């Protein structure tokens, strides 16, 4: 598939929309947007294993936490540069994801959700544990510094640390989204979806279900772990209580509202989970949760395909009367 001019224009527009906030938004809002992109990346990770491969995970906050902690420990304790820690965080999360994927092979839908949910609940406790305190900083957590923009860049483009962070997050996430998109629309993506929709038939066609499922878990954990690593640096702080089971639930809500099994939906999901609670928070301390839950249920009832499904349907409606699809 080559890029048609219209598609090319869309990509350019998207790039411009992604880069514009660098100059348009002030510090705090830019930080929020940075976090929204990070959330979108985490939701993308969840979408690969749950949306495309049908293995329900309610524990992706665990991978997010591991990614964040690997980067933080390497930066704070071993003085590594931020960029060097990213592949490391990705690799470790991938391995942990693979390890979680192995017992997951034996578990169907609801049981897997249950196991991953208990993983999500156990994570803060594990992070606080005394045996790890020398590395993790225990309850106090670890403090980090955002990387400063290098001299050669600032001489061309005057950026402060926040803007530079946004740029970093954008580039890393962009690469991950591209890779995920490539994976999904290719042979492996079709195999993942076939495994989800009809495992028996997929196996009869010669697909290695076990390898696909554990692989999906590994890739998914890797992407969510990278998101965690980015978030640790963007916030400049990690502590066990930032990674409660609510984080995993947040990713799940983002995936459902944005669109299950949709790459574009992951972006919607990231924006949603970051900005909607802020609005709801102004109503009451308890309101974000209640509104979250209600939106989740309403979406499942009315719009099970999420935002992405809505957009797809609207586009189809817009384009069909003028130029019907050539068959």
């Amino acid at each position, binding site marked *: 598939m080559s890029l048609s001019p219209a598609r090319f224009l869309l990509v350019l527009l998207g790039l411009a929309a992604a880069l514009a906030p660098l100059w348009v938004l002030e510090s705090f809002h830019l930080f929020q947007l940075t976090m929204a992109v990070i959330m979108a990346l985490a939701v993308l990770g969840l979408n690969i294993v*749950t949306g495309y491969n049908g293995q329900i995970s309610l524990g992706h906050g665990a991978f997010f936490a591991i990614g964040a902690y690997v980067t933080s420990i390497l930066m704070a304790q071993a003085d590594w540069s931020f960029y060097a820690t990213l592949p490391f965080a990705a690799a470790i999360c991938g391995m942990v994801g693979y390890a979680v994927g192995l017992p997951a092979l034996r578990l169907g839908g609801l049981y897997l959700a249950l196991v991953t949910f208990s993983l999500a*609940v156990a994570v803060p*406790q594990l992070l606080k544990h005394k045996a790890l305190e020398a590395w993790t900083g225990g309850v106090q957590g670890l403090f980090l510094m955002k990387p400063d923009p290098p001299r050669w860049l600032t001489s061309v483009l005057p950026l402060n640390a926040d803007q530079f962070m946004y740029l970093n997050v954008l580039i890393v996430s962009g690469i991950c989204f591209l890779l995920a998109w490539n994976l999904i629309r290719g042979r492996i993506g079709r195999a993942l979806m076939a495994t989800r929709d009809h495992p028996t038939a997929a196996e009869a066609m010669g697909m290695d279900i076990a390898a696909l499922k554990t692989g999906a878990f590994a890739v998914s954990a890797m992407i969510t772990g990278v998101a965690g690593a980015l978030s640790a640096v963007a916030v400049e702080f990690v502590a066990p209580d930032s990674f409660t089971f609510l984080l995993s639930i947040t990713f799940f809500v983002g995936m459902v509202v944005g669109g299950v099994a949709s790459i574009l939906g992951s972006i919607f999901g990231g924006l949603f989970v970051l900005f909607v609670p802020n609005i709801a928070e102004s109503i009451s301390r*308890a309101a*974000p949760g209640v509104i979250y839950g209600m939106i*989740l249920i309403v979406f499942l009832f009315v719009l099970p395909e999420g935002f992405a499904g809505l957009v797809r349907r609207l586009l189809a409606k817009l384009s069909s009367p003028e130029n019907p699809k050539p068959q």
Partner: protein
Amino acid sequence: MEAFLLQLTACIATGGIYASVALAIVMIYQATHHVNFAQGEMATLSTFIALTMIQAGLPYWVAFAGTLVVSFVMGALVERLIMRPVQHAPILTHVGVYIGMLLIIGNLTGWVFGYTIQMFPSPFEGGGPMLGGLFSAHQLGSVAVTLAVLILVYLFFTKTSLGLAMRAAAYNPRSARLVGIRVDVMLALGWGLAAAIGSVAGMMVAPIVFLDPNMMLGILLYAFAGALLGGIDNPPGAVMGGFLVGVLENLAGAYIVGTDLKLTVALVIIIGVLVLKPSGLFGRVVFTRV
């Protein structure tokens, strides 16, 4: 030795709580073949309702009975209004709805009743230590209540025609409908019963751990672990599993991993059971035909 015995009796009391929540989970599983993630939040809400009734001046057992009725209605309503429309939807939708309910009920409880930790009265107070000082009155009482609930549920399912109808509706809905059982009503009834059992667990555990909106989260996981350990399709097995998990958790907490890793014990039990013996200790092995 005495310290060990005290540990053991404490285990049995908390195990009783896990057993009753595990029983509630198994009830829903038997009626719908699903595991309700919001079970704990529903039980916490029930407990707050009970507290409100007690504070309004009702005697304990009247409030207890009232809470059972309210919880039963609440469970049946949840089934009617929220679960019924997505009955035939994929599992992902069900998980989503459970998570949604968990968020709504949990946060609503905090919103209405506040986040401060509250004392909850025990009906068995004032007896002093019993059986050589090993059990407190509340521990003995809550174990007795759990066993009573178990026996009632067992009798209900085996000796009454309504219980038989419920089992039939879960086992084979189509045939059950053909012989005139109203499967929809049975489902709602199953949810109502589970909510009522959960509320009993909530009222029994609240005097021990104190009442706050997040009270049941850990308990729910232990109960899941217990239900799986005993076999998710076997009510007496689930109760045994609940007691076993209580013992394992307390002994591991006291002698092996320390109290700050207790929840991880639940995780290890859950994964261990699912990997080594997915049908549980007392469950039936189910074969799936492809």
